[in-house]
């Protein structure tokens, strides 16, 4: 059952009201403007044993995403395409409020938001991931681990996912006459085929003020968030209202406009950082 969360670590009331009153003046405790995104750092290929990986720092939020390619069966309705599985875990290292154990509803929601954005935009060219068409295909496992939590986990995870996918390469496979498949991970044939790029942009709302990329303190005062997946060609590739409150029609349209603008600049940043790494 999903239940109203108790605030994990309660932001003291005084601090909370200060944050809100400053937000109403357009000022954030970190000195950022309402529409300023925190700095993004990417360490591409951070994990040797992954087929692709990226460690992302978004301010003090740290996420590592890794891709593993495994040989599996295709879905019955797409026999000639690869398959995708996205998981996320909030590690107990990231916050004293995170318990070890299977993903909770927040981690599941995060994984599914990212999964949908990749799937709907066809970010990965699945048609190139069949090994024996109709029988054996690459299954792309994306695992996302939040290591340090200072807010906006969805965007940080979405950036780490994009980074990991762009870092992924296909190992060489040999299929013998009896259909046995041998994977040789020491030889890399080509990068994972990518059609499009996507990131999410999270717009938070507190006391009728909209602002992007909330940190942990700001999340504790936000009534709700709109998470907007944005493609490199500036389309909306997914939406999720997340959190207790509501949004007016005009707030939604404002948030969309903010996201479309911010999203494409993040995609550019990620692309150039990975190219130069």
């Amino acid at each position, binding site marked *: *059952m999903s*239940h*109203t969360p*108790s605030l994990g670590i309660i932001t003291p009331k005084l601090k909370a009201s200060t944050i809100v009153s400053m937000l109403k003046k357009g000022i954030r405790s970190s000195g950022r403007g309402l529409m300023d995104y925190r700095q993004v750092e990417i360490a591409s290929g951070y994990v040797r044993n992954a087929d692709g990986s990226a460690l992302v720092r978004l301010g003090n939020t740290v996420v590592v995403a890794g891709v593993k390619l495994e040989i599996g069966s295709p879905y019955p309705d797409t026999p000639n395409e690869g398959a995708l599985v996205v998981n996320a875990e909030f590690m107990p290292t990231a916050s004293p409020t995170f318990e070890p154990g299977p993903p909770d509803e927040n981690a*599941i929601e995060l994984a599914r938001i990212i999964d949908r954005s990749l799937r709907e935009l066809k970010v990965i060219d699945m048609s190139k991931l069949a090994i024996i068409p109709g029988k054996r295909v690459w299954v792309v496992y994306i695992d996302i681990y939040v290591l340090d939590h200072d807010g906006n986990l969805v965007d940080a995870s979405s950036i780490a996912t994009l980074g990991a996918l762009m870092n992924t390469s296909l190992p060489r496979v040999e299929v013998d006459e009896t259909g046995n498949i041998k994977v040789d991970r020491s030889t890399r044939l080509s990068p994972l085929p990518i059609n499009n790029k996507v990131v999410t942009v999270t717009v938070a709302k507190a006391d009728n003020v909209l602002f992007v990329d909330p940190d942990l303190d700001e999340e504790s005062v936000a009534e709700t968030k709109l998470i907007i997946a944005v*493609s490199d060609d500036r389309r909306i590739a997914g939406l999720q*209202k997340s959190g207790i*409150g509501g949004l007016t*029609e005009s707030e939604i349209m404002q948030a969309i406009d903010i996201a479309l603008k911010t999203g494409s600049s993040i995609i550019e940043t990620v692309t150039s950082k990975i190219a130069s790494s």
Partner: protein
Amino acid sequence: MEKPKLIKENGLRHDGRRPNELRPIRMSVGILNKASGSALVEYGETKVLAAVHGPREIPQRHLLLPDRAVIRCRYHMLSFSTHERKSPVPTRREIELSKVIREALEPVVISETFPRTAIDVFIEIINADGGTRTAAVTAASLALADAGIPMKDLVVGVAVGKVDGVLVLDIDEEEDMFGEADMPVAIAPSLGIVTLLQLNGVLTREEFSEALRLALAGANLIYEKAREALRDRYMKVRVEE
């Protein structure tokens, strides 16, 4: 399965509806005996039962909050409600939707009235033909009202889709499966807020804006039906007294 034609040459949909037309909608309130409140809501062949227990004490005392009631919500599909039999193990989809539906209801429930209690909302999808989460919001909202929980407004939902390039209201399973986008929306009309919004698919800014307006219009029609169902319920109670 091959994709069928979803918009026919006459502009009508595969089941004969116009793009902005709802399916037949039925609602009955107060149909269970042991729950504090209940409702059965049908959007076409989608059939959703919601029951509310509470406000009540619960053994999981660590969940309780000092200044308000905790809302707990479970969205659950009966195994035979779907085309393929659904395994009884909760899916990640069910877990996500339980959260999304709870968050759609939170803004209207005046939970401060009952601190240190739980209000439990159980949603059973009896038959799934598209739009189950939005029908669930409507049913849950009616069950909460039937339980006498104080509320600022009813929340009602409906899904908009893009099929064969056309934006259509209240999509069914076939339109969901073969369409290009599915956008469930729930609103609290008197409060003027959207409390559930998801998009599964890709839309331009303009398409989105149009889709949102289509959803709001459809939800307002459902809102009228929901208020009527509640009125019927109260009438019936009064008559029974």
